Structure formats: C-alpha cells, structure tokens
C-alpha cells in the first residue's frame, strides 16, 4: 500500500499551519503497514523551527509506516538540511554558513543536562545572542528549561523534540518544544474529574500562576516564569495541546481557538525579540537572609 500526502504550500508559526500539521498527524496516525510519500512540491515556504513538530508527528506513526519525502523545492530542502532535520531521514547535512538555524534535536525527556548544553551551544553563543545581556540569556534559558522539564513531569513522555529558527531581518527568534505525551487537557480533566473541560480552557488554566495538576507537591511556577520573560521581551507564546490552541501576543492579548482534530501531545512555541535592550537585572528584594 502506498499513500501520498501533499504537504501545505506554506508552514508558518500560525493557527492555520498548526491546524494543517495536526490534520496530517491524525491522517498518518490512522495508517498501518504503508509507504507514505510526503510530497513537498507545493511547499515554497517553511518556518523551520516547526521541524520539531514535524519530527514528533513522523515519529508517532506506526512502526510499519515507512515515511519518504519527495519533490522538495531547493530552498525548503536546504533549510531542513541545515537544521539537521533531514539527516534523520537519510539526507546529508548542509553547513549553515549564516548561522540562522537552531538544530533540530530529539532528546530523551530525562536528558536535562544535554538539553542545557544544547541551549548553551546552539543558542546562547550564536544568532546575535552574544550582544544580549547575561541576565537576558539566563532568563531565556530558564524559560526553555522550565518547559522542557514540564514535559517529563506532566506529560510523562519518552522524548522531547526541539528546534529553532532565527530571522535576522525581523530580529525574531522562534523556538519550539514538543512532546507526544499526556496532553494538558487530559491532565486537567483528570485533576478536576471533569471530562467536559475543553482543550483551550485546560491550557488557559495551566498557564496561570500557581496552577499545577501534580498532586501533593507545591508547584505551578514554570509557565509563570516563561510568561513573565515573554511579556517583558514583547515576544509571543503559543501553546497547542490536544484540540486546544492558546496564544499570548506582544500586547499580552490572549487568543484561544479549537482545532477540529487533536494533537496527541503538547507544543510550546516561543517568539523572542532579539532587538531587546532592556535591563533584565534581578531586583534584590532582601533575599540575602531569606533561606527558609
């Protein structure tokens, strides 16, 4: 058996593109014992940080489903080779001379130290980061680590997929972290013992300060750390989990939408402004004596 899936004409960090990728995820999830040709003939634009989601989707197909890519337009193929995505599928690597990619990586969910090393090597020393303040870099890294660790704590997943892309003209840096574990909706429904909670309501609850579905232990500070950083930076944050889409834009405005199909996992997508000259200095709130 052989199936052809026509990849969308453009893949952007938008609700529409996430919707397209989730539809592909559901379609591929229904297949068994098949060759699938992912046809990129129409795809002329692809925001490559979303390789993290593509990798998670292709990995979640049945073991007997054989994925092949075909008809790449050169620009799309090159960016996916530069960020190491295609080298997982038998394509050679291409050197990223201008250093705009942040490599696609698949981590074991427990690999926190290698993930920190990856952030340090792939992000904080490249892409205009050297000119940013040390506090900015640290706050950004902290946000990414909070999201990464959440995947293990809450999603109970085996792997976490990450990738980024820097757009030097706009000074925008996108970074995506994906897991294919328990969704936010599943955790929140179980916590409240209420299956009527929608995907968007569940995300909107989970991103608030002090909320946690972990029983018997204090927590609920992870997403708050991320949102504080993003708000200060005037960046944006997208969270996709189950059938929910949640976005906080540069003005702090929250948009929520539902997808017709579901993603069996969670995507956290950050947009960071790299022309940020603010002071990220920690305010010393008499913390010297405060241990316990």
């Amino acid at each position: 058996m052989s199936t052809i899936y026509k990849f969308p004409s453009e893949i952007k960090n938008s609700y529409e593109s996430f919707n397209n990728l989730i539809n592909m995820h559901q379609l591929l999830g229904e297949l068994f014992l098949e060759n699938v040709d992912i046809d990129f003939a129409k795809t002329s634009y692809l925001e490559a940080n979303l390789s993290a989601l593509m990798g998670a989707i292709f990995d979640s197909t049945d073991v007997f489903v054989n994925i092949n890519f075909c008809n790449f337009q050169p620009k799309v193929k090159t960016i996916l080779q530069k960020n190491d995505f295609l080298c997982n599928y038998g394509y050679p690597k291409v050197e990223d001379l201008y250093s705009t990619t942040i490599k696609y990586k698949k981590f074991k969910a427990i690999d926190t130290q290698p993930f920190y090393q990856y952030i340090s090597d792939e992000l904080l020393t490249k892409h205009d980061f050297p000119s940013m303040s040390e506090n900015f870099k640290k706050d950004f890294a902290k946000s990414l680590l909070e999201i990464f660790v959440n995947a293990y704590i809450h999603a109970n997943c085996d792997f976490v997929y990450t990738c980024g892309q820097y757009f030097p003209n706009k000074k925008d840096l996108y970074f995506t972290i994906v897991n294919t574990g328990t969704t936010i909706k599943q955790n929140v429904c179980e916590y409240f013992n209420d299956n009527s909670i929608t995907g968007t309501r569940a995300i909107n609850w989970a991103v608030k300060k002090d909320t946690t579905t972990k029983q018997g232990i204090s927590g609920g500070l992870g997403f708050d750390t991320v949102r504080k950083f993003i708000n200060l930076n005037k960046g944006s944050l997208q969270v996709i989990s189950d059938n929910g889409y949640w976005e906080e834009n540069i003005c702090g405005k929250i948009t929520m939408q539902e997808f017709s199909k579901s993603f069996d996992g969670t995507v956290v997508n950050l947009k960071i402004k790299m022309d940020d000259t603010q002071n990220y200095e920690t305010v010393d709130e008499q913390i010297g004596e405060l241990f316990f």
Partner: protein
Amino acid sequence: MSNKEIKINIYNEVGGSAAVSDTDGQKVFEKINKALKAGNSVVLDFLNIDMVISAFLNTAVGQLYKENYDVEYLRNNVKAANMNNDDKEILATVLKRAKEYYQNPEYRKNLEEALKEELNNG
C-alpha cells in the same frame, strides 16, 4: 544523634551545571532530610551551578515544609552557599509558596477553590 555540618554538592548531585529536574531535586531532598533527621545541619553548595529552576527547588527544598520541621529549625540548619542572587529570588518564591502550601491548610483549601473558579471563569 550526630551534630555535624553536612555539605551537599549540588553540581555532583545533578551531574552538571544545571539544577533543573524534579528527579534530581528528589535525590537532594532525600539527602537533606536524612541528614536533618540524624541531627545534622546542611549546607547546599551551588558552586559551579549556573542554572536553577523552580522544578528542581520544589522537590529539593520545598518539600522540607511537608516534614514536621519547625521553620526556625530549618532556618538555622539548612543554608545555601555560592548561590547567585537571581537564583535566590526563585528560591524565595518557591519557599514562600511551599510554606503556604504545606503548612497552611486554609491556604490550600482556598487555592483549590480559586483554581476551580479560574477554570470556570476561563
């Protein structure tokens, strides 16, 4: 009962310069708890650690409030050394939250209700 000062080297416990995972936090918590129960005091040494997040601190030290230690006892017997100021800020937030969560049943009850209300208000 011994009365020694036990130093816990966080870099060694987490196997790197990032103290971030709750699993590593749990290991550290068990060491602190064991040392305190044996009548020792503890110094958490963050030398060579350049990244600390709440997920680690929630389990490593937040849980100490779950045990029946007097706050004054913890203040006198658990110290942090070589911790950066911004990491101390996270520590302060985690400890404040943990103290309320574990030691104030009223806070916990109110929090549960507030969280439910948050959900209903969307």
